[in-house]
């Protein structure tokens, strides 16, 4: 049942885009369906402050390019997240500032917590270190991890979104997962050094 519902949703992306070529207002369906996820992705990718504008811009660009959409693709998420990722990369300067802020914030954590080995239930600390680790990655690496681990796109969909070969996506994600896993096992002090 769940799969059936999921497939129907996927199909309706294409239908909405196709219809929007003659009925532009039909594009609003795509917005209502995916804006929240695109916004959350961009929030993790660039910070909440920039996410609103970038997510909004993502859908305006998608709307303008809707006639170019490959209607054989039933799910519009790779297309939308590809646009979002490109926009996020253009925010490189502000992204760098954010990364520096994150590192500074993590360094400024209370001394008592600095030597703690991460406890699995300590989600707050885990998230800080995870975000610090993400901030140290290149924009492309971050896109790969967020699209795979957070958004839940498949390897194929990520390859489509980021215009990368499938093999490259698989190998990079594998390597990034290992790297992240090691980071999460390290004492907090080493992570933030």
């Amino acid at each position, binding site marked *: 049942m769940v799969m059936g519902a999921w497939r129907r949703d996927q199909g309706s992306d294409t239908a909405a885009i196709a219809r*929007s*070529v*003659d*009925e*532009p*207002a*039909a*594009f*609003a369906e795509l*917005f*209502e369906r995916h*804006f*929240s996820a695109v*916004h*959350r992705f961009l*929030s*993790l990718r660039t910070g*909440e402050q920039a*996410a*609103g504008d970038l*997510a*909004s811009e993502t*859908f*305006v660009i998608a*709307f*303008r390019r*809707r*006639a170019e959409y490959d209607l054989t693709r039933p799910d519009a998420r790779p297309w939308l997240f590809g646009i979002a990722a490109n926009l996020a990369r253009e925010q490189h300067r502000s992204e760098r500032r954010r990364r520096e802020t994150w590192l500074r914030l993590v360094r400024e954590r209370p001394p008592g917590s600095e030597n703690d080995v991460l406890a*699995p239930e300590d*989600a707050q600390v*885990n*998230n800080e270190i*995870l*975000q610090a680790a993400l901030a140290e990655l290149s924009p492309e690496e971050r896109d790969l*991890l*967020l699209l*795979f*681990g*957070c*958004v839940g796109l498949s390897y194929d969909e990520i390859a489509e979104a980021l215009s990368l070969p499938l093999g490259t996506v698989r190998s990079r994600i594998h390597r990034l*997962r290992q790297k*992240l*896993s090691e980071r*999460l*096992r390290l004492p907090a002090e080493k992570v933030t050094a």
Partner: protein
Amino acid sequence: MAPELDALRNLWQITPEPSEQTLADARARLFDAISGGNGSVAAHARLVPRRAMLPRRRLGFVLALALILLVLLVSAAVAFGLRIVVFGQAQKAPPTSREFKIFADMDVGAPPGMESNLIANETRKVATFGDKTLWVAPTRAGGFCAILIPGGGGCDRLGTFPLTVTYSGGVPGPLSPGNPVVGEISGSVNARWVVALEIRFQDGDVIKPQLVWVSQPIDAGFFVQEIPAEHRQPGHLISAVVALDRDGNLIASQSLPGNRSAAPPPDALLDQATQVATIETSNGPVVLRTAPTRYGGRCTWLEFKGKATQVVPCLPKGYEHQQALAFAVHPLGGHSILAGECGYSAVELLHRDGSVRRVECTDQAVFADLTAADADGRLRVLDRRGRPIPRSTTDIARAILSDVR
């Protein structure tokens, strides 16, 4: 499960959803692109296929093409019996006009969060119905405010209400269950879901009012329908006003104020209804049920002794946070049952003796069996951090309904 994937999923789960303001801003921006980029008109007007992307190299050519397109669209619409108004071409209200001032003053004194945020500079005359003129202005959140002069008006600030109806009495005195004779109906339907409107009568007759469709950013159809004399007699009165989609499915339905039905709300998709909670009384259980609607909203109702009582009107998405609309106290089976929508975390019942009872919201609904001390006190709403929401305090006595069963 791999710990790094767990961590990423946890991060995703705690990443907040966009705020209503972010959503509204983004919607407005997209609607600007939809309206401005391609000269869109209401979905019902799009009977003639056209190119999605017009070339921009030659402005004159584009304008000429747009004009031809508009003529074709309007011709096609007329051929199909539709009345269409391209909002951007409708007459603007001068800033010194009465209509402009009415809209400009609309938000004066509105409680926080309840402002319409309308764009008064965009007040436009979109239709005339006999001696009445309809003025409409868009809101920043994708909705609109409309006013019929002479007559009245209102706002759907989010543009998510599928159907709004205003009734005018056919005999002197206010419309009420004791005076249910309607002389005129006016209102609007949302073009996102609705293509047709029916006024249904007790004797089985149906009138389909002429709708005037107004393009983006309004994207709605408006109507004014005088009720014939034969339908101002007992047994022939209005039973419901019903909005339908292109497949004839019921999107939304409204009955006269005070008309009570023992059936679940017609807007509810009953095959997706869920039972939220039950309160046992000596006369049997009171069950709170909810169900989604075709317009992304939700209906909430009580069932007691085989009869349904609507808790609040079925609310479109985004309106469930208006606490004044969203709950009531129902005297059922000798109990006072507090029931309603709750887009917050909890409500607090403030007793006269200073004690407080907290009722958690479950599945975005509030449902509680009130004690005498509760019913004699006040109620306030708490936000997600447990803090009282300003101006949410209400006397419970004001929320008690009179429909004792």
